């Protein structure tokens, strides 16, 4: 890991650890949601930012992770995250294996549409069949323990989520700087060349897809336990779009960018939904969100993370590139 990234993560985690001791209950709850978004965004960053695969069905893995914990824990008295969490991730990963194996046979815009269509397939299975309990969703009756401890208070759960985010950050940091991760970057830049020098690029991409799906499943697990409730909207393509926006908003090609984007997205959502600012117009908050997205694509193609380098190039007249930073 590069030094600037290590410093960023260190400062971030010290700051986040301190938050509950300053903020209100509401702030902790909001921050927990944002951290989960962060994990979710990181999962997609591995695909889009690192490997160059634009997946538009990430919400399916998120939703499957969320539904798995609710469905499995329903029959158990005091389920434990120690096995529930891996099972959730595994189920999300299995679906990712299925979707990836098929959709990776296609390329470019086909890939975008096929991943979207398979996510819709999962959505309809949950929405229409008795498995998912229909539109109304299901409640989580037995909150999972962690090694036998109950992590039911919002503070404890916040710290647990923070730990998960740290774990995902570290894992993805290791992956992107390993041989495997470099191969993924190579695939993003020129897949044909990677194939020519002897990489089975399909297998690499599939592996990245499954890892990404499992991390999205982890985010889904956390989301379901946090709210104690799941509904089919967790698999909807709106969420897949939202998570894509998060990583673009932050800036592609950086793990930090994904987290910053998730945070910025959560702030935007909070801002446009705030009745204190917009009054009764706040119920049309999608309008503001949609306009900000259009604005962001038009004027910040490299995301928030790219702003300093835009300033730098304006001030110094030098050119900086973002994606290449990682190589």
């Amino acid at each position, binding site marked *: 890991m590069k030094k600037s990234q290590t410093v960023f993560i260190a400062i971030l985690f010290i700051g986040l650890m301190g938050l509950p001791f300053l903020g209100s209950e509401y702030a902790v709850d909001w921050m927990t949601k944002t951290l989960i978004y962060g994990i979710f965004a990181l999962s997609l960053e591995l695909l889009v930012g690192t490997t160059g695969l634009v997946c538009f069905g990430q919400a399916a893995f998120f939703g499957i992770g969320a539904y798995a914990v609710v469905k499995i824990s329903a029959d158990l008295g005091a389920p434990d995250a120690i096995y529930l969490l891996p099972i959730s991730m595994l189920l999300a990963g299995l679906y990712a294996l299925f979707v990836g194996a*098929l959709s990776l046979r296609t390329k*470019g815009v086909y890939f975008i549409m096929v991943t979207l269509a398979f996510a819709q397939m999962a959505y309809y299975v949950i929405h229409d069949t008795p498995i998912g309990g229909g539109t109304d969703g299901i409640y989580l009756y037995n909150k999972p323990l962690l090694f036998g401890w109950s992590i039911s208070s919002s503070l404890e759960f916040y710290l647990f989520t923070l730990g998960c985010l740290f774990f995902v950050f570290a894992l993805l940091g290791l992956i992107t700087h390993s041989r495997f991760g470099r191969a993924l970057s190579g695939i993003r830049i020129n897949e044909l060349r990677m194939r020519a020098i002897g990489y089975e690029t399909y297998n690499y991409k599939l592996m990245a897809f499954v890892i990404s799906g499992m991390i999205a499943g982890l985010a889904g697990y956390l989301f379901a336990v946090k709210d104690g409730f799941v509904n089919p909207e967790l698999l909807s393509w709106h969420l897949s779009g939202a998570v894509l926006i998060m990583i*673009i908003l932050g800036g592609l090609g950086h793990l930090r960018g994904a987290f910053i984007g998730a945070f910025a997205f959560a702030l935007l959502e909070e801002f446009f939904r705030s009745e204190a600012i917009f009054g009764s117009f706040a119920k049309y908050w999608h*309008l503001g969100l949609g306009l900000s*997205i259009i604005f962001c*694509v038009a004027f910040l193609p490299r995301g928030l993370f790219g702003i300093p380098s835009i300033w730098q190039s304006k001030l110094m007249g030098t050119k900086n590139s973002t994606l290449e930073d990682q190589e």
Partner: protein
Amino acid sequence: MDFSTFLIQSLNSVQYGLLLFLVAAGLTLIFGIMGVINLAHGSFYMMGSYLAFALSPMVAEAFGGGLISTFIIGIVIAIILGYILEWMFYSYLYERDHLQQVLMTYGLILVIEEIRSILVGDDVHGVAIPEWLSASIQLSEVMTYPVYRLFISGVCILLALAMFFVLSKTKLGMMIRAGSVNREMIQSLGVNIKFLYRIVFAAGIAIAAFAGMVAAPVSSVYPGMGQGVLIICFVIVVIGGIGSIKGALIASLLIGFIDTFGKVLLPEVAGVLVYVFMAMILLWKPSGLFKAGS
């Protein structure tokens, strides 16, 4: 399933498939020629339905009714809107990568949906079938079939034929096809490519909106109706092969059949069937049934 049920469901399948084709063809046109992946395409379908809902009472008051005049006014509005939207948003997307196209058009969906919500609210509406089309045909002693659905099929077939004719037989169609292969070349031949694109785009949107208008009396008008259609149309484009209008037509009819008969025979898994079908096609032919240019 007896024969007359089968017949009715077949007619419904064809009607649904043809309707989907109109939306998918616009999507194929915009993607195949301009290289823009337009997520907001379904929103234009929805816009068409709402136009039909909003315009028909006004037209009735001004001209004393008439579905056809409603359609014509609606199409004109859709073309103007498409022209403006191309100028404001889409013209910047041609040079951008797919990811940014996806994002900007996703943002556009949110904006269009909310503007609709502000203007007409979130209620479900119905649009009346005009009297001269509201009859039914007697298929057997107990089964009847509404004329309006036949009317939809007929109109869709006419429009599809017109589209095929324009694309394959006229000079405009030749320029459009040439533009999709090599933009610089056709520009250097003296064709105003920017204007050509704007027209194609406006036409694609108008066709989607028209599909929404014709469908309005059958499917009723409700928020979010465009998104379901959009994703089905993506499936159609993937199955048919990107850029192939013929592929889009065949895939639309197949999907129409699968969806309609699925809802009758296997109602519990009907929503999934279409995607299972897509998965099977992809296993067999990863780039669709009719890859453009092959």
